[in-house]
């Protein structure tokens, strides 16, 4: 008995020696894991004296986490690198962000960053249509997804799980001829809502569904790896988010955080995104392989203030159509 007790005590003692992380910066991001790791690795190579810990989740979930932490009075994150400007605009208005005028901003279109320096876009992520190459129809526009050929074969990301999906729904809802009626028609055609963009990719690539609304880089990258998928930029145009970066007002390490912002906006940081298969936001950068020319991509407009104001109502409308919460 004694040996067991002492063995247990020893075991317990070793378990309690939990290593504590010594991160200088904590990044909350919605980038997929491989990309987040690559971004952070690139920054740490450029700034070897700063260690970055990162956390990945869908934008709404990461914001939910942050909100809960803020409510608790102890936000862990120093930096956000998440899907859309609307979300950061909301945080800015709530006074949760730190203003920082990055010198790199000069290389960016003024519409891509906040004039007061609260957030900066890092890339362009459009949402279009992907299809499985064994599908019968090759969709060219959004409305093709409501055709009988696509009955029961369409999937899309949920605005509750993905920031890009929310902006996408809000963008299409404002397009004359599409609007919420388009979403109702999709629902009537048996379209389903499945988690985030990753779930859509998986579902279409594997052939569970034939068509999906999805962010561009996922299917384009997977196609290059040999997956049986194609991505199209629909004729009506695509919605876009810009994956902005912002510093939280509560950061305890503002100087390091500013360096991170400068890095992701710098040519080097932008090349890192390019290599991962994203359209860089910085002026005069190339497009990644597999994309059409930049001016061939028609981006549908979205009014940020209006989108912000309508977010709750839009989520309710969407949930009402798809019976999810």
């Amino acid at each position, binding site marked *: 008995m004694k040996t*067991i007790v002492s063995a*247990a005590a020893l075991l*317990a003692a*070793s*378990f*309690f020696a*939990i290593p504590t*992380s010594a*991160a200088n910066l*904590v*990044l909350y991001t919605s980038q*997929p*894991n*491989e990309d987040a*790791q690559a971004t952070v690795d690139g920054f740490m190579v450029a700034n070897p004296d700063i260690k970055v*810990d*990162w956390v*990945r*989740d*869908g934008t*709404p*979930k990461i914001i*939910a986490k942050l*909100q*809960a*932490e803020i*409510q*608790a*009075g*102890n936000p*862990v994150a120093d930096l956000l690198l998440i899907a859309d400007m609307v979300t950061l605009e909301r945080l800015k208005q709530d006074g949760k962000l730190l203003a920082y005028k990055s010198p790199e901003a000069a290389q960016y279109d003024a519409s891509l960053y906040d004039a007061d320096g609260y957030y900066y876009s890092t890339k362009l992520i459009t949402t279009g249509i992907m299809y*499985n190459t*064994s*599908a019968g129809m090759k969709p060219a526009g959004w409305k093709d997804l409501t055709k009988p050929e696509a009955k029961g*074969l369409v999937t899309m990301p949920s605005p509750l*799980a993905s920031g890009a999906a929310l902006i996408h729904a809000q963008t299409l809802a404002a397009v004359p001829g599409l609007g919420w009626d388009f979403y109702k028609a999709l629902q009537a055609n048996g379209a*389903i*809502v*499945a*988690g985030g963009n*990753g*779930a859509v*990719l*998986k579902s279409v*690539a*594997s*052939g*569970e569904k*034939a068509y999906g609304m999805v962010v561009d880089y996922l299917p384009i990258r*997977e196609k290059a*790896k*040999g*997956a*049986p*998928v194609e991505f199209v930029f629909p004729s009506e145009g695509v919605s876009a988010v810009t994956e902005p970066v912002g510093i939280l007002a509560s950061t305890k390490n503002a100087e390091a955080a500013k360096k991170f912002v400068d890095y992701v906006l710098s040519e080097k940081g932008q090349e890192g995104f390019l290599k991962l298969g994203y359209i860089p936001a910085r002026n005069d950068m190339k497009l990644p392989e597999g994309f059409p020319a930049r001016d061939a991509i028609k981006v549908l407009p979205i009014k940020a203030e209006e989108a912000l104001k309508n977010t*709750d109502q839009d*989520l309710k409308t969407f949930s009402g159509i798809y*019976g*999810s*919460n």
Partner: protein
Amino acid sequence: MHGYVRSGNSQPAWLFPFIVISVLILSVLPLARLAMVGIAAFANGGVIDVLSEPSLWQATYYTIVTAVLGTIISLLIGCLFAFLLTLTDLPGKGPLSFFFVLPMMIPPQVTALAWVQMSGPSSPLLKALSLAPPLGSPQPLYSVGGIALLYGVQHAPLVYLALRAGLMTLPRDGVEAARLSGASSLRVFRDIILPLSLPGIIAGAAISFVSCTGNFGIPAILGIPASIYTLPTLIFTKFSAFTSRTFGDVAVLSGIIAMISVAGLMIQDRALRGRDYRVIGLSGASAAFQLGRWRFLATPLLWAILFFMLAAPFSALVAGALVPAYGVPLTFKTMSLHALQEILFRQAVTRTAFVNSLSLAGATALGLLVVTVLAAYVLTRRRDLASRIVASLIEIPYSLPGIVLAVAFILVFAAPVPVLNISLYGTIWIILIAYFSSFFAVSLKPLITAFHQLDPALEEAARLSGAGFVRRLFDIIVPLIAPAVGASVILVFLIACNELTISALLWSAGTQTLGVAIYNLDDSGSSDLASALSVLVVLMVVVMMLLLELLAKRLPKGVVPWRN
């Protein structure tokens, strides 16, 4: 002596208050905090909005239906294995038992991932075998039946362990007496074994039901794509759209889950009322029945069940980790080690998650034991109203889904702890405390069962001979309940290792657990990485179980749950 011992009762005076304080901190405080937020939501009129949403009632319906069906399936499989492996001379009992307990130790979302990859058009395994259904075929597991089936697979070992613990202490002499009087095997089983094992079956059913209602990993992966929401996934999606109302809504929703779980436990309580089978010590009823020719039916049946529960899904998982991209059939040409390399050598989260999950699980299992041995003693000796209240308070956190507990603990530990002025929020310690709260009941249950079967006469005799409480504890009680102690530690360790729902909300940078890492990888579309990490987790579980197997000779009998 009078100062330390209550008259007419053999417990030291500090014992019950100690348990009460533990329960206050781990159960009452967080839940009261959550209830306050819930009541505040009531006061603001938000509750009408919540209760009038059809999605709520739909989710309640799905929660109950899947949990009931899942419990039935886990009872069928669990009882079949428990009776055959404990009471008969079936060959290969050791390995059968070993493999049967394995699914319980695999995180639910890994089980779900593996099964999804095993069936439907997405299966890399079926594609490799050219058996995949055509494009657009529905995934059969994305349904109520699919969720219930995986609940059954996931929780059958819980039933098995609960029942087996009871079966191992069956009096052999009773069976032998019946035999000598000419009773048939069926008669012995029906009249002696079955009634005596009912408490174990009912306890197993209750654990299974409560686990089903709180499960998150399986309905998240199988239900959400088909718009089938159970209450835990509904709460999770509500969190994904965090608003000022969220905490209030969740408080109301968790109230409903609590009612369902408490209803399940009340049925258990009622079923057990009036039954008090006490058996002296361990009688060991091994091989009470000779299977004879039936073994040629039973052996392949059990192995076939295990093949579908383990081998097939695991192969699918490996296939999922080896494909270079989605939808590419797995062949020797296309096979790629990219995902394994990424997980093992590039992703910082892999090591973090392994260290965190193992440390948390170990600390929870051993730390809790100190409290639960004493709690089990007190609760079985004192049978007054106060102890019944304490017992139900312990059950509540476990019957709530992890996500509800997580919110409760955020609310409690958000601000720095008074006096000590330490901030727990955002650290690994808040997860540890939430684990203590959540797994209290898991740790306690096998001990309570053991205490119920313990004859108080032994301890009374020692007390009359002048042995103090501590002496009686270490010399009489602990040796007699050692198997239950072992079962308790292992159960808690493995469940905590695979935990997802609590950590899903409490994790922060650097405190990711394995469950969170796998779920997030899959959620971000990197199901190849999720599969690769899952394969590593399954291998780790098997290695841990093999280590226990090696150590088993040195451990008291019954500590390793799958061994005779």
